[in-house]
Each structure stands twice: as structure tokens, then as C-alpha cells.
């Protein structure tokens, strides 16, 4: 399984540059929002966490549709599916992890820079980073279900996003509210963050199983 992680990371970093693309897209999102709300630094810093979260959610969609498609096209998917059930679930889990490491983690790391651009306080930026660490893997995990469903579709990209976005809404809600709770005083940070973590754990358990089921069914 480590081997799989290493291979997927090698491919991600070698071709496509998914990590870079995600961060750049993220940057683009953050760059255009100020146009809308004007140079109101106060407002910017207020909606900063939300913007970072939305950017991260959307950036995670990039490349998600190829999660299994590339393997299907060169025949590797057959070997992956040709495992016992636990092996397959573990494989999907590891592939999600690799996807997160290649696209989600860079976003987390880029968050401080973007926080600066959005005039966010250090606490706020820290809170966003923390919630992103907990939340973005959940997006990858639930995204795997969409990717597995669309594995046989030529241009699954949009379809995967459509299927996944409604399911990702809870992640967004609790991610953002935890980030806000960290800076606004009466609200405690922990409850929404715990819920976010619970969702992440739930998706980490559910996503690979559902995706594995879809892959088993899709094999032809």
C-alpha cells in the first residue's frame, strides 16, 4: 500500500502538476473576490475564512475525476480490483490519501499566504488551517465515490463535481463555522470542529467502501 501511495504521488508530481494547479486556482479565487467587495479590508478579513474554504473545496475538484480513470485506461485498475474486499477498500483509501497529499495539503500550506492577502488575523488563519487539515481529506474521500461512479465516463469531470458538491456541503458548513467560532468570542471552537472531524471520519470510512463497491460493479 505504501508502494501505491508512492506511485500515485510520483505520478501526481511528475505530470499534470495537480498541486500547483490547485494552489494557483486557489490564488485566483482569492485574487478576484476583492473586486467584488471593494477594498474594504474589514469585510475582507471577515469573509476570509469562508473564501479560503470555498476555494479549497473547489480546488479539490480539479483532477478528482481522474482518480481511477487513468488506472482504468492503462489496465492497472484490473489489478487493483482483483483484490479481496479489504484490499480494495484499502487501495481506494490510499489513493484518496495520495490525492489529498497532492492537492489538499498544498492548499493547507498555502493558506497562511492567502490569509495574509485577505488581511486575516493569525488566529483566524490558524483556525482555517486546522479546519482545512480536518476537512479537505473528507472532500477527497467523498469525492472518490463520484470518481468511482464516473470511472467509465469519458468526460466525467463536471458530472463528478455535480454529484459531489451537494454531499460536500456539510463539510463546508462546519469547516467555516468552526473557523469563525475561533475568532468570534461567544462561540466555542470545539463543537463545530468536533462535528467536522466526525464528518471527516465518517466519510473516510464510508467513501472508500462506497467507491470500492462502485468499482467492483463497474468492472467489465
Amino acid at each position, binding site marked *: 500500500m505504501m*508502494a*501505491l501511495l508512492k506511485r500515485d504521488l*510520483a505520478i501526481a508530481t511528475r505530470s499534470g502538476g495537480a498541486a500547483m494547479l490547485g494552489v494557483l486556482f486557489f490564488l485566483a479565487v482569492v485574487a478576484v473576490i476583492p473586486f467584488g467587495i471593494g477594498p474594504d479590508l474589514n469585510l475582507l478579513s471577515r469573509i476570509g475564512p469562508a473564501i479560503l474554504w470555498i476555494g479549497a473545496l473547489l480546488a479539490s475538484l480539479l483532477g478528482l475525476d481522474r482518480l481511477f480513470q487513468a488506472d482504468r485506461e*492503462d489496465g492497472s485498475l484490473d*489489478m487493483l*480490483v*482483483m483484490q479481496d474486499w479489504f484490499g480494495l477498500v484499502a487501495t481506494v483509501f490510499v489513493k484518496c490519501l495520495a490525492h489529498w497529499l497532492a492537492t489538499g495539503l498544498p492548499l493547507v500550506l498555502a493558506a497562511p499566504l492567502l490569509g495574509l492577502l485577505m488581511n486575516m488575523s493569525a488566529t483566524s488563519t490558524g483556525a482555517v488551517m486546522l479546519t482545512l487539515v480536518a476537512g479537505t481529506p473528507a472532500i477527497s474521500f467523498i469525492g472518490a465515490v463520484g470518481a468511482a461512479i464516473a470511472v467509465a465516463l469519458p468526460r466525467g469531470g463536471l458530472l463528478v463535481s455535480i454529484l459531489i458538491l451537494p454531499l460536500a456541503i456539510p463539510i463546508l458548513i462546519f469547516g467555516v463555522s468552526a473557523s469563525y467560532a475561533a475568532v468570534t468570542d461567544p462561540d466555542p471552537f470545539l463543537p463545530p470542529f468536533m462535528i467536522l472531524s466526525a464528518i471527516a471520519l465518517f466519510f473516510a470510512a464510508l467513501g472508500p467502501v462506497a467507491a470500492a463497491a462502485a468499482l467492483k460493479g463497474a468492472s467489465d
Partner: protein
Amino acid sequence: MFWTGSPPFLAVRSGDRMRATATKLKGRRGDSVLFDDISFSVGRGEALVVTGPNGAGKSTLLRMLAGLLAADSGSFTLQGDDGADLPVAEFAHYLGHRNAMKRELRVSENLSFWQRFQRPEDGQGLSVDAAIEAVGLSGVAHLPFGYLSAGQQRRIALARLLVARRPLWLLDEPTAALDSRSDRLFADLVHAHLAEGGLAIAATHQPLGLDRVIPLELTGIHRAATGAGEVW
């Protein structure tokens, strides 16, 4: 013999009963039955060669044996030497039409990935270099897989079978794109595999150069599915 190093764990001993057995397999694609009532049994040291015209269902049969497709009815089991059922997925190598290699990774990276992915903890198999050597391509290990010629790619795909030792080989047109020298090389590989107690099931259009094989011919005449198949 090119399997140097570790002792041949597959070597045939008297009393070895490892067998791959198909019973009344029925294969369907869409609404037509490709084959029905396929039964065979392959033991250690034996090879089954599936032939038949294009579209007969050879690949479909092999994918069923590999567990990638569900059989319409019938069963395929692999029994270990002690008579217990073994999971095919873990004891068989499947080599399909596609090579299961990443173009952008080096040959050695590709092979060592499969080695670590497919070899069980205590399993055996050649080292990556030895496997590349065994398919006669020493020197290409550092090239990206995509740089190889069609035949070289196929030979590297064959090398995957060597880096993780598994008793049953399921081969779908293994010699496609191979030149005549590599055909012989492939035959030697399979011979060695069989000699060490392996089992092989191959679909092919070309003679594989194996001398003692069990033939299985699919006629390519399909019939429409009836009964349970006709739902609507």
C-alpha cells in the same frame, strides 16, 4: 534455469493437489451467451490454451476466471495443495490486453511498484533487475515506460509476472506484438513456470510454442440469452 536465488517454492512434490477447476461456466455479454457449460481442470505443471475467433469470448472467459466479471452461472475455484479453496485474486496473475504500466514512470519504478503491491509478505519472486533481464531487456530499466517499443512494453508487462511469484497465470494474448525471439523467450518463461509447479491459462491466436497443452476452443457462435436473461 533463470529462477536463481530462492528455492522454487512451487516445485512439484508428489501429493501436490493444487488445481484450478472450472465447472459449467456460462458467460454472457449484453443479451448474448458467449459460451456455456465450460468445464476444465488444470493442475500443477499444466497449461490450458484457449483459442477461438475474434469476439469468441476468450478475454471474457479470462476476466471471469480472474474474478473481474461475474459468471452468469457456474464456478471457478483454485484449490491449494491441501485441497482447501484459495482466493484466485491473491494466487493468480492476470495479464490483459493492456499492460498495466504507467507511461510516465520508469520501467524499474513500474515493476517495483507491482512487486511491492502484488507480492505477499512472505512471497517470492525475482528482483526487478532480474525480471528485466529475464525478458531480455536489461538496459531499459531507467527509461520511462512510454519510451519503449510496443514489443518491449509487452515484455515488461510479462516481467511483472516474475517479480511477484503466483502459482496461476491468466494470460490474454501474451505474445501480441512480440517478435519471434521473444516468442521463444516467452515460451521458456512459461515452461519454467510450469516446471516449478505453476499453472497457466492463456488465450491466444498464435501458437505459444508450448509443447504439452490442454486445448479449449471457443467456437465464436453465440446464442441469444433466454429465460432468466430475458427480463423485459
